[in-house]
């Protein structure tokens, strides 16, 4: 199993989410991060003094998938997140040794399988 961690622009999330869902990967987690990379800082002005921010908001996507699915997922992210401008972000792949589905207690790659009726499952 692999964990895919992507740092992307907010705008790219919605297409990625939709596409991953179609590909059968409904399960992802996102969080707000601030990143510095090759981007220049922006300067705010307040009552005559200045404040420079070097960090810019990014979205961090986390998604654990079976080994064989890694490429498909990475490719999907790369495709939708690319604008060609600096600040597009990075995708990293990390090894995962174990996975557990809390609801059932099951472990292993199977827990990563999308439920057949993922898109329309009852609320939970």
């Amino acid at each position, binding site marked *: 199993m692999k964990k895919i961690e992507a740092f992307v*622009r*907010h*705008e*790219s*999330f*919605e297409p990625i989410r939709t596409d991953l869902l179609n590909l059968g990967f409904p399960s992802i987690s*996102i969080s707000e991060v601030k990143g510095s990379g090759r981007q220049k800082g922006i300067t705010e002005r307040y009552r005559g003094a200045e404040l420079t921010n070097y960090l*810019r908001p990014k979205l961090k996507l986390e998604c654990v998938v079976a080994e064989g699915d890694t490429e498909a997922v990475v490719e999907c992210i790369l495709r939708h997140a690319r*604008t060609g401008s600096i600040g597009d972000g990075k995708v990293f792949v990390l090894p995962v040794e174990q996975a557990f589905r809390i609801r059932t207690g099951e472990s292993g790659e199977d827990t990563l399988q999308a439920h057949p009726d993922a898109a329309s499952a009852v609320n939970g």
Partner: protein
Amino acid sequence: MRKRTLPMATAVLLLLPAVANAATPEPTPLKTSVAIDTVWVILAALVVFFMQAGFAFLEIGFSRTKNAGTVVAKILTNLSIASLAYWAVGFALAFGNGKLAGHQGFFLSNYGDAVKTFGAMGFSNVTPETKFFFQFAFCAVSLAIVWGTTLERIKFGVYVAYAVIFAAVIYPIGSHWVFGGGWLQASLGMQDFAGSTAVHLIGATGGLAVLLHLGARRGKYAADGTPRAIPGHNMPLFGLGIFILWLGWFGFNPGSTLGAMDGRFTQVILVTNLAAAAGVLGALVTSRLKQGTLDIGMAGNGAIAALVAITAPSGYIDAWAAPIIGLVAGLGVPLCIYAIDKRLDDPVGALSAHGIAGVWGTLSCGLFTDPTFAKYNGVGDGGLFYTGKFGQLGVQALGVVAVFAFVFALSYVSFAIIKVAMGGSLRVTADEEDAGLDISEHGMYGYPEQFIPAPELIGYSAPPTEVAAELGRTGRVPTATSSEVPA
């Protein structure tokens, strides 16, 4: 066409017969003194009206983020129901003559000579609309007080149902007894200048009745019954509420003179302010001693409790008594809140700040009323500290008990009926409570960006397709760019 519209007009008129049939009198100039009195009372009524915003923000501040928006909807709804119900029915019950309840002036019409019909306000010549509007604002305040105990878990429908009953029947009759010319005022000489009992205790009693049906917020009490802190989300907005309410009391108490010509209202303002000031300091002292910190909410509760307490005596006492009355209220209100919190979940402290402080204020007339003012107002006698007699104190106590019993009984039963009508519970479901009333009752959070993930909000992500729709004549929507740098 005329044929079709005339019946239409008739239909409308038939729907509101008592109202619409009233002859429209040609307006005539007022006496100078009446005009002055009227301007003053309207000014007072406006700041009392604005107390609705005060209650809204007090409650908003004390609510969690997920339940802040619903307060706005609630106050608007209650205020609206009170506006119509008190106009249609309530005012007539409250001020139309009668010992147990009035019965003239429904829809503020067909009341004949207003000075006689609304006899308890006969000492003032301000226009009937002025009297109505001022008293309506009081009714709306009393109704707003009811709901402080119910935050964050009550069904919206309960507001609607009880508001009608309260503004049309419960408050009018209760206040009628105390300052509408009813038996407590007319026969016993109970003193309540601006409504420590008639407005605040009535409201808080309704709040107690609903709380007993409703129960605590989920998680408020640990398994062993220990109360847990559920901090309100916004002390600045809470503060806004307090400032607005304090200002409002400068209409509430001095406006109850229903006139400006004797200058009394300025003394009432002085007295009101001294009490509030002492209340804040008292509450901070208690909070410091008992909690170890200067609790912001308690400072505000101290102001409110002192203002509630000074409400009854504000037209009966000398200035020196005001800081004493306020200080006692202020010192006491945190203690009451701590004690009540042990068993009852009253998120804003309404039972303490309006209920217990209302009782204290009413009783304080029995201690501090200056006989000169009792005579001037034509109600009751001097208090214990002037006369050495307990008579007035006894009357005050009796009044408190009578009003509390009446309002509690009627409200408790009303809520019981509403409960049955609403399918057995006044509460939203546990899931709805967890999600918050904003989303579950109103379909959207009060602060959407605090709950909805940014990429699912518009303006954080591009529109779903590359080319946004071209819209009517409004021109082409600018295309997005991927650059993220602000000007």
